[in-house]
């Protein structure tokens, strides 16, 4: 089977209708999003998954939101939402937000400054287990100055202060202040949330479906589609087949073979966009069974470099994604504001790893060609998450390539929970990790920072620790000039790439499948659903039965 480049195929597609109007006309049908993952939990303080973010951001509005250029630094890139305007204090350690007077909760109550305070309190309650808590450590407190004025105080000045504030979603204090500590998840509110966003929750069958209905009198105007429904199929093949069979309208991320298959279904439009996820093989700097000790093999940078050199990532990526992924350059994706495409990766080299490993004494060979030193084989155990088909496949290819270099990679494939436990416990030699980035560099801090500062290193599975890297990132964040910030971060990227903290594998270029009867606005790569309210039906395309306006309110 000769395979035409999928990218070429996508380029041949008609360009998206540019439609940048933020509001669509009322009655723009029903959008059914097919997904394999349940959105739960989907309240802004506790959401974790991408679908959870999607639902929470349709149900709730933030104070401010990052704009289309996705620049998280300073304030130029932000657009108002619940906060109509904001003002910096003279020392830049506080921002005062003035709420939109028209903003209402879905139950009709006005959004007040106390709701902002409640939003932070819910994040800060440890028993709620908010993953946002580590992202907003630079916020000191939030004060309700008056009903419509909330002031956010920060511990320190940083380039991402406003971004931090955008993560605190106001929550309805009149419904939530009476909750006991840690009671958010089990509250009646979690079952029937009252939000401030363009959609309200109509129906929820956990793990099966979730239906959102348009808020007619939303302060930002009525959203387009009457209903947005999530239909959840545990088997992705079934979920995608639903889109082919017109039972659903959207699948967010098609695997490459399905991109080819999509051409058989004329009602499906393919939407390629920039990805925000990247995948890497992190080396464990600490011994798998004793995190206090250095890893006997991988603590040596020469070994890490050799292992990196031994991998033909270009070939691996083509095998996995055809042309629908880029080799990863470092701990960032190309769509990020700080991306640096000039970084030279450690090149694929068949001879260099052999030289390095020989010089380190791995000269013996087993019958299968695995290197030996003092009679012990050069064996690494890779922790691989079973739910990620891509990473499992990547692991098999890496295993094969490393085998050729005389390295025996044992694939330890585990289901999500066991994978998480082993990864957090540092019980591995290498881990096939992934990270969904955001426009900000917080991910960089938590994934690769040393953990010396609050909110840093929480996600650092391999326990990479570099004082230079840490200080470069810190310097960058401390600057008020976005350009300076970006330069410092880019310098940090070079440090970590040179250190070979991980093998930077790939950043996929996702392709979404969307039913053709919708006219789409620009696809926001980091959060495509943000423009969902402005989708509308193509008047030329035949509508489906489900697009009829719902009779019940």
């Amino acid at each position, binding site marked *: *089977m000769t395979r035409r480049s999928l990218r070429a195929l996508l380029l041949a597609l008609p360009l998206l209708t540019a439609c940048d109007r933020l509001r669509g006309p009322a009655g723009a049908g029903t959008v059914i999003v097919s997904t394999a993952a349940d959105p739960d939990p989907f309240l802004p303080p506790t959401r974790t998954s991408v679908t959870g973010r999607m639902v929470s951001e349709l149900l709730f509005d933030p104070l401010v939101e990052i704009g289309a250029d996705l620049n998280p630094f300073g304030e130029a890139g932000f657009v108002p939402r619940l906060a109509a305007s904001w003002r910096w204090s003279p020392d830049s350690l506080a921002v005062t937000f003035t709420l939109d007077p028209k903003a209402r909760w879905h139950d009709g109550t006005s959004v007040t400054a106390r709701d902002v305070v409640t939003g932070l309190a819910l994040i800060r309650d440890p028993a709620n287990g908010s993953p946002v808590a580590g992202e907003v450590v630079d916020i000191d407190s939030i004060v309700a100055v008056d009903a419509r004025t909330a002031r956010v105080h920060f511990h320190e000045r940083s380039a991402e202060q406003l971004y931090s504030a955008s993560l605190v979603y106001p929550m309805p204090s009149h419904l939530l202040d009476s909750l006991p500590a840690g009671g958010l998840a089990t509250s009646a509110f979690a079952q029937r949330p009252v939000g401030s966003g363009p959609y309200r929750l109509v129906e929820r069958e956990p793990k099966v479906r979730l239906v959102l209905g348009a808020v007619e009198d939303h302060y930002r105007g009525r959203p387009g589609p009457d209903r947005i429904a999530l239909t959840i199929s545990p*088997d992705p*093949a079934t979920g995608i087949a639903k889109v082919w069979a017109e039972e659903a309208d959207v699948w967010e991320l098609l695997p490459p*073979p399905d991109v080819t*298959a999509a051409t058989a279904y004329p009602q499906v439009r393919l939407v390629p966009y920039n990805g925000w996820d990247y995948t890497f093989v992190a080396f464990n700097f600490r011994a798998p069974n004793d995190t206090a000790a250095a890893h006997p093999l991988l603590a040596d940078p020469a070994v890490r470099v050799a292992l990196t050199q031994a991998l033909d990532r270009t*070939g*691996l990526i*083509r*095998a*996995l994604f055809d042309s629908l992924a880029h080799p990863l350059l470092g701990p960032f994706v190309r769509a990020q504001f700080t991306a640096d495409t000039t970084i030279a990766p450690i090149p694929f080299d068949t001879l260099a790893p052999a030289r390095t490993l020989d010089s380190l004494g791995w000269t013996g060979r087993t019958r299968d060609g695995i290197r030996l030193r003092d009679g012990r084989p050069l064996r690494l155990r890779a922790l691989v998450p*079973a739910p990620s*088909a891509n990473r*499992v*496949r990547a*692991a*098999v*290819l890496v*295993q*094969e390539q490393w*085998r050729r270099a005389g390295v025996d990679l044992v*694939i*330890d*494939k*585990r*289901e999500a*929970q*066991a994978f998480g436990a*082993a990864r957090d416990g540092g019980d591995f030699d290498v881990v096939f990790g992934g990270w969904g980035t955001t426009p900000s560099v917080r991910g960089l801090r938590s994934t690769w920072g040393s953990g010396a500062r609050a909110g840093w290193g929480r996600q650092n599975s391999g326990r990479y620790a570099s004082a230079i890297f840490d200080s470069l990132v810190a310097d960058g964040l401390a600057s008020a000039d976005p350009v300076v910030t970006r330069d410092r971060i880019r310098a940090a990227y070079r440090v970590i790439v040179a250190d070979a903290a991980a093998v930077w594998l790939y950043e996929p270029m996702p392709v979404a499948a969307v039913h053709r009867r919708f006219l789409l606005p620009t696809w926001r790569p980091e959060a495509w659903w943000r423009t969902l309210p402005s989708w509308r039906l193509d008047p030329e395309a035949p509508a489906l039965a489900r697009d009829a306006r719902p009779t019940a309110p």
Partner: protein
Amino acid sequence: MTRPQRHRVDATTLLTVGGIVALTLAGPALAPYAPTEALDPQRLAWQPPSAQFLLGTDGFSRDVLSRFLVGARHTLGVALLAAGVALVLGTAVGLGAALAGRWRESFLMRCTDALLAMPRLLVLLLVVTGTGALRLDALALVLGATGWMTTARLVRQETRRLLATDALRGAIVLGVPPARLVTHHLLPALAPTLAVAATGAFASAVPLESGLSYLGLGVPTPLPSWGNIIAEAEGDLLRRWWVVVFPTAAIVGTVLLANRVAERLTHGDAP
């Protein structure tokens, strides 16, 4: 009461079984490529059958024929070992229950019922997700340990029936001690039942391994097995038919063969 002459398994079946065993043993020698070798993931992935790759290649550009040949020993080995474990456990529990009598029998059978009432898949899931991918022998052990209950019930029932026969009563009245009763009187009489139970356990373990591979719980990557070759298709059965059809045919064939053997054994020993 004279026993009818035991029917032998016919020559064709024996030859086929022998052929499969030979193929399984010789598999690695016959395989044209290394079963785990990704030949050229960029250009040779998902090749349909051709002169170069008789059974095509999978998504990693590994030769399906080689994986198929080498996978036979993993699939059949796991199934065989699992059947053996199930047989031993089931016979022990079934015999123990039938001989212990009273509350001990009741307790053993309640435990058996409990295990039978526990969805096997969930138990496997709990074990496998807890420990990560199992090694082959561990996988077979777990499969056997979760699959002995029907054998136990069968053995208990048959033992109880046998204990009521004149031959066993004769031995009891003679004063044959329990251990000898089991080895000299019960087990020889149970042999046909056990043979059928074993073939049944084997026949059910072969497709089960494949089902587990679909859920990612089967023979660990990159070792090939018939089950995980099929699972490689990732549900796309129609476009990647070659990775589905051949191993499935092999699984079906093996089960048919096991059934045939079981049938011969049953018919040969029907009273």
